């Protein structure tokens, strides 16, 4: 039984890694088409780096990811603290709202934001679809995830620690800054990392909220793939795989340290 389980696991892991390994291998392949390895080359990477647009898209992706993560982490952490520590009217409703971005398919979220921006433009003359609207869209789904992650961390904390801080004369913000936040930190870090990954990964919401000049890497990959399989995309994909592995290893190291 154990050996059967082990064999099954081996096959599933093979299934998980095969596509990725093929992409990485093909990025170093001289042949343009097919899977026959005709020789090692770095030409596709060279072509990638010589394309000034790719650098621009990469920077767009990073700007969106870091700005949206920053805002979403701040909003989400505060919201989680408020939800865990206080009772207030509308709390139940707010919890339902939090789950909408988590459970509703991205397409629906993308088009609903598109409608919102279209209406806002009609009524207020603002905003035009651009990198700015992409950032607003990303913050929206990130806030929900950050809040849920930080909240689950806060629920594990002992409220006596905060009471002790207050008994010792700490004011509200002092308690928050010196006691609550440091204790919640692993949750905040995990939430921020999740938000960052979600942003780097997002295609659908970006697709509907991006205006001209707001191309990100996933949008670029999508349009290249629509035009046909290209070794340059293999090279780009390999670099992105390496980057995700780095971020995941970082998160893994952070989460282990807390134990």
């Amino acid at each position, binding site marked *: 039984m154990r050996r059967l389980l082990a064999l*099954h696991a081996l096959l599933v892991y093979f299934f998980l890694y095969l596509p990725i390994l093929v*992409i990485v291998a093909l990025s170093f392949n001289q042949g343009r088409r097919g899977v026959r390895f005709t020789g090692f080359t770095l030409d596709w990477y060279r072509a990638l780096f010589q394309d000034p647009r790719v650098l621009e898209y990469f920077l767009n992706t990073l700007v969106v990811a870091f700005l949206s993560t920053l805002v979403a982490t701040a909003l989400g952490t505060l919201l989680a603290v408020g939800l865990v520590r206080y009772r207030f009217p509308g709390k139940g409703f707010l919890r339902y709202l939090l789950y909408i971005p988590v459970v509703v398919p991205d*397409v629906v979220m993308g088009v609903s934001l598109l409608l919102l921006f279209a209406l806002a433009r009609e009524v207020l003359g603002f905003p035009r679809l651009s990198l700015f609207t992409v950032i607003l869209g990303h913050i929206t789904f990130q*806030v929900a995830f950050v809040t849920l992650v930080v909240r689950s961390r806060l629920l594990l904390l002992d409220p006596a620690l905060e009471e002790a801080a207050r008994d010792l004369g700490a004011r509200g913000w002092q308690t928050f800054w010196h006691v609550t936040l440091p204790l919640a930190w692993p949750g905040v870090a995990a939430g921020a990392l999740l938000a960052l990954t979600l942003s780097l990964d997002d295609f659908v919401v970006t697709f509907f909220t991006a205006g001209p000049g707001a191309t990100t890497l996933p949008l670029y990959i999508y349009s290249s793939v629509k035009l046909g399989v290209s070794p340059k995309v293999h090279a780009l*994909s390999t670099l992105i795989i390496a980057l995700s*592995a780095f971020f995941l290893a970082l998160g893994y190291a952070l989460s282990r340290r807390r134990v």
Partner: protein
Amino acid sequence: MNEAATPWRRAFRVLVTVGPGGLWLLLFVLLPTLLVLVASFLTRGPYGELTGPLGLHNYARLLHPVYLEAFAQSLLVGVLATLLSALLGYPLAFYIARHPRRDLLLFLLLLPFLTNFLIRVYAWLVLLQREGLVNALLGALGLGPLALYPSFFAVLLATVYTFLPFFVLPVYASVERLDWQLLEAAYDLGARPLRAFLHAVLPQTYPGLFAGSVLVFIPAMGTFVVADLLGAGRVVLIGNLIQQQFGITRDWAFGAALSVFLMGFVLLSLYLYARLQGERGLGHGRSPYPEDLL
């Protein structure tokens, strides 16, 4: 919390913590959702703008066979992807949970998962194309090149590949806090392995199974990217219809009706999931949602 705090101070604290995030959710989650609902009752104008008259005409259009077929396809992808994920993911979760290096195995499970979604889908396009690796292997076996892409099969395969970790993680969470003494008790009472598993192990993993099914089923039904790239127009799901209405067709009113339909379907399945979980008396205790795993 603080007995000494005046009501005003408390209200101020709530405003500072919940205010910004709450306002964001009202503005960017609630308002857009209401807008979709309103738009679904409007009409496409001559230039693709939204105008009156108000009515249920967009919903009436949903009954056209073309759209019904897309719903059926979406449902089929959702159900089959969930079943295949269970087949692959359920035993895997047990293997990982009982492995001495389970941290590493989880890490290895998440690594491909955190690789860009589009790249994961694209990789299957590369593998399944006519000159791809799968056809090369089939050719070596004398099975000639098959038209694997574009096809329903390709869409299903990539969907399972993309969402499999969503299934494994909640099941893993259930297995990790499994009470193995119940299994021993079943053996002591003379149960055979299958019976012992069905009565002492499987019920304990229901919360994980349900959560995993929902987490695979919803995105599998709702995505348009996988069907767009690997179905190449031959496999049309609800997500693809929505994208078309907001893209080339520019009939936002009908697209909104499709979105409301999809959203309603998702919420209904979530409701049924909650009911089912509650009925089995498993709705209490720790939730098996992935948020717990972070």
